[in-house]
């Protein structure tokens, strides 16, 4: 194992899959000559050339559709959205074409495409540039959605996504690109299956379910809680769809209390779905009502303090955990 950044991990995943399969190509705004708006594709143009690392005009709907068309005849496109806020310009392609094709064509056309890029609020980018899209996309049958929080998960999930024969969204996080973590050496194949959560920290009193940018928050809060003699188990979903119900249920069966900390909005958010499943299947395991920590139900304000107030943050999570523990 060695320590690399989340950005490097994604870059390695792209390079390895481009190397392995000539049908894989990467397309998006500024991915080639500029080396990526967030430098995730740095060096790839030099390694694989302009045929496979392709700069586009600002035409998200166009190049997302191009990718789907190319996938219908067997190529395996990786489409980068500079951020998932801009994927909304391509919503029709991602939601109406990619996931429907297989059903509509009676199983003739599967769409092996990866849509990737940073998702979720970063820092003071305002309402148009701060969308957390995981709950929109996870609600669409035919799409798969994953949300890596660590370099290792980023690499392993992206590689799996590229090899998947269905449309997969890899929702990265701008605020995590420079974070570091241990990852297997490059000569060791690292594939992490979709739909497999990971316990990022073991605990016995309360389960904290998290993903993407809320994982570091959960780990930080778990460390703080230790000082109050509360042992929190941190379950990183890693994939939103498919969802690893088993891992969530197993943890709750041990702790009997749960807080879900999510990056999206509360109304119809990811946590709402998880709550439903918990109460349906393991109602008797619960010793307290489930709590959710999410963004506030408002468009994102620019002002820094207001933004902090809107975001799921450590203070809110800390308070929620204490509440479910009646502490």
């Amino acid at each position: 194992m060695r320590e690399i950044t989340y950005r490097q991990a994604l870059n390695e995943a792209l390079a390895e899959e481009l190397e392995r399969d000539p049908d894989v190509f990467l397309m998006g705004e500024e991915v080639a000559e500029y080396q990526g708006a967030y430098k995730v594709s740095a060096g790839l143009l030099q390694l694989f050339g302009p045929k496979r690392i392709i700069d586009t005009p600002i035409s998200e709907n166009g190049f997302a559709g191009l990718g789907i068309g190319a996938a219908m005849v067997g190529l395996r496109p990786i489409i980068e959205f500079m951020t998932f806020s801009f994927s909304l310009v391509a919503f029709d392609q991602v939601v109406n074409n990619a996931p429907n094709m297989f059903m509509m064509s009676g199983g003739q056309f599967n769409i092996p495409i990866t849509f990737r890029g940073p998702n979720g609020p970063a820092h003071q980018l305002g309402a148009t540039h701060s969308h957390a899209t995981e709950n929109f996309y996870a609600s669409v049958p035919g799409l798969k959605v994953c949300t890596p929080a660590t370099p290792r998960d980023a690499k392993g999930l992206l590689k799996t996504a590229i090899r998947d024969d269905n449309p997969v969204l890899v929702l990265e996080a701008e605020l995590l690109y420079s974070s570091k973590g241990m990852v297997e050496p490059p000569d060791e194949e690292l594939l992490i299956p979709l739909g497999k959560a990971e316990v990022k920290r073991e605990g016995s009193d309360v389960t904290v379910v998290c993903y993407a940018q809320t994982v570091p928050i959960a780990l930080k809060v778990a460390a703080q809680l230790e000082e109050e003699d509360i042992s929190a188990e941190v379950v990183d979903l890693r994939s939103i769809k498919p969802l690893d119900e088993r891992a969530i249920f197993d943890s709750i069966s041990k702790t009997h209390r749960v807080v879900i900390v999510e990056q999206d909005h509360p109304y119809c958010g990811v946590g709402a779905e998880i709550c439903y499943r918990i109460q349906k299947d393991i109602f008797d395991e619960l010793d307290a009502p489930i709590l959710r920590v999410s963004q506030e139900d408002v468009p994102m304000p620019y002002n820094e303090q207001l933004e902090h107030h809107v975001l799921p943050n450590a203070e809110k999570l800390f308070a929620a955990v204490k509440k479910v523990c009646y502490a």
Partner: protein
Amino acid sequence: MQPVEQRDEVEMLSLMLLIRRFEERASQQYQAQKIGGFCHLYIGQEAVVVGAIAAVRPDDYIITAYRDHGHALARGTTANACMAELFGKETGCSRGLGGSMHFFDKRHHMYGGHAIVAAHVPLGVGLAFAIKYRSEDRVTLCFFGDGAINQGSFHEALNLAALYKLPIIFICENNLFAMGTSVTRSTSLKQIVDRAEGYDIPGEIVDGMNFREVRDKIAEVADSIRKESHPAFLEVRTYRYRGHSMSDPASYRTKEELEKYRLDDPIIRLRAQLTREGKLTNEQFDQLDRQAKQTVLDAVKFAEESPQLPVEKLYDYVYFNGAKL
């Protein structure tokens, strides 16, 4: 039809200076972390928006993309309100809720500040639709970058404007780059203006470093639109001196290219024209510049001292009736 008041050229020069000094100060305050998020400076392009507003009336509509500080200032939004917005303060033109990319000023008919590339072009068409719907004597100026012309919404908007003969001037501020992508790498046409032809919209190329050329061309087009409603398209050639945003080192272009454009600076150019014609002395110019710098310094102080919107008021801005649903 009401006449368009001739704007004094010295006043317009001082407006360009105000924008220049504002942006320099914004850059400095960004580095000092008083300003957050993305921040795109307008330095080099001042003659475009100042030329445009000099050619229309204060109640004509304007709408633009995220490189919007100059547009608000040119329209009459105070430097105080602009700087306070960058600082995220309640006294900002969008109450500190929008930030650099989302300047709005209803009173001055500035309809934003829009950060999704080309998403505001249909909105501009909507403003123009309302003008025609109400049979008003107004035009809409819709500004956007060269990067916007390859979005679907841009194309749909042009067709709609042409189809319904709406009173709108599409103003493409062609600064040759969309982030690191030059126009030659983004667009199949040799000239952006040829986009207009495909929609049967009259189009022309304008030198965006020349205040007078921009003003006169837009005045002529606006006059024609006021007589009989129709859309028009101007490709205004300009250059941004700084990187795309504060975080872009702009290593995709050469020093020589930048120097070439700096020699053609719109402020130096208008100053030279006015000086040659005996309308401006060096002392007067220096005085205008000192004033601009002072206005901007005062704006920083105003922004520093302004309050932020209290958290409890945040929910007043989700739904118009202030309801929390």
